[in-house]
């Protein structure tokens, strides 16, 4: 069910790759498998706590699969571990980590509001420069696509199993 788009994605031209570019990194079927497994474990641990818990588990699994290489994944993981009250800690950590190559968080002349919206959408990008936000957004979009694919496959499998079980029960009863 999980479409193996690896062939399609490998035909995509990679840029001069100092790092694995988001589309190829997140579209490999290996990544999907890793994430699927992690998601299953997380779901098992959820024990039917509700949709919110499922979403949290899914996001945490996604962030784990990112191996903490992207800022948003670190933000998700840290946000889950610590309390909400400790968010200032998270911000301090972001500041320390972001001292590498970050220019001043400039409000770009074009699309300032959009940049702000983007900053809010992508977790952990509140104080990044425009370039970093765009970079994180690219990684985040690729990861989200993979997450949607995997979760949809899981949900379909679930409902398929449920239906099969229902028919079995009907027949049995």
């Amino acid at each position, binding site marked *: 069910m999980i479409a193996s788009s690896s062939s399609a994605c490998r035909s995509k031209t990679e840029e001069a790759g100092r790092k694995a570019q988001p589309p190829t990194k997140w579209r490999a079927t290996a990544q999907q498998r890793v994430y699927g497994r992690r998601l299953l474990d997380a779901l098992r641990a959820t*024990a039917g706590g509700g949709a919110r818990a499922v*979403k949290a588990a899914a996001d945490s699994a996604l962030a784990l699969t990112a191996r903490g290489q992207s800022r948003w994944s670190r933000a998700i993981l840290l946000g889950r571990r610590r309390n909400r009250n400790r968010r200032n800690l998270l911000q301090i950590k972001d500041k320390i980590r972001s001292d590498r190559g970050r220019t001043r968080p400039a409000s770009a002349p074009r*699309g300032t509001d959009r940049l702000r919206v983007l900053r809010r959408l992508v977790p952990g990008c509140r104080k990044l420069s425009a370039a970093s936000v765009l970079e994180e957004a690219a990684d985040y979009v690729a990861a989200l696509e993979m997450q949607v694919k995997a979760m949809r496959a899981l949900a379909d499998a679930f409902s398929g199993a449920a239906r099969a079980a229902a028919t079995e029960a009907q027949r049995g009863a």
Partner: protein
Amino acid sequence: MEPPRSSGVGIDNSGEYSPEIAETLRFEEEIQSLIHPSSFDGSAAPTGGGSFTALLGLPANQAVELLHDSGAREPLASRIRVGEHPVHRPFHLPLDCSSAFPSNATLVDRAARFSVFAAEGSPASSSGRLKAEPQDSDSPPLDPIPTGPAKRKDTGRSKCDVRLSLSFKSQAKVTAKKSKNAEENTDGDKLPYVHVRARRGQATDNHSLAERARREKINARMKLLQELVPGCSKITGTALVLDEIINHVQTLQRQVEFLSMRLAAVNPRIDFSSLDSYLSAECGPVTVRNGPGGVVVDPSLWPTDATAEATRRLLVPQFWHIDLVPPQLQPQQSLTTWERDGAAHSQLLPNPTTSLFLYDPANSGDTNVPHRTAKLKTAEDRALNL
């Protein structure tokens, strides 16, 4: 001796470059004056002349390259792009001329320091190039270049080599002009050894260079995002592309939420062992708890699951899911299965609405997403308010 005939050519075709004609005329004299004393040097004459040809040839190189490039970007990028051309020489003269033109090193240093490519690495890079100079002589690759085809290139070349002799004060003039010619740096009155990175018609302040670098970085990332988000390659204009990207991110996040609802709905119902058979193809080996006959085990789980709590939890998200997500997959089938269960869901019907509203604010703390509508404006308003 080689007169600066190219500058004569430049005069002929300098229709576009009229403001520079006076300069060219003026500096022709300078060049000639420079050349003539060099001719008096016994040994240095041929080298001087040769270096002058090299000078002419090099500018042609640079001119061609500069004419091709429309404001080449980052140091790496310019190096790469330049690499495409057969000859990439920084705009320098062989040091053989040094004997002919005294105190050249200082001039070169000054030129290097204020060179067009005034980015961080430029002094270092120019000094590096300085070291490379002695190795470069009147190299053969320069020869084909003077036979540049286009007239325009000749004029460019003429402009270039004339510019070489521009005085240092005129650097400001040069940089101020946004002409099509290459921006170069010149040094003093003597013929310079100029290290130039091609930059066409752009200012050479440190600020603008840094800004340009930053802009190029942002544009590169935007391009990457454009490829990622479907349907963005056709859109021109950063604002619309950004809108599309934001829309896409919101859509994806919403999809994740709905899928998590579905999963939560199905979770308590299915034993994970039964799932393994479905997912083994994709997820590889997963630990099977009850063995391959997991499907048979399910009915036994139902009585335990069919508590009021479980059904309520299952049914409520299901209804919410159906209400809000018509395009989602198979809502009807699951609804029928739930109906077949025979739970008293009629009494649960009023609940979904309340639970729905309860769910949203609770979740908004997580991601700030659920309140976003498809319209960007309202989303922006909320974002600005938040």
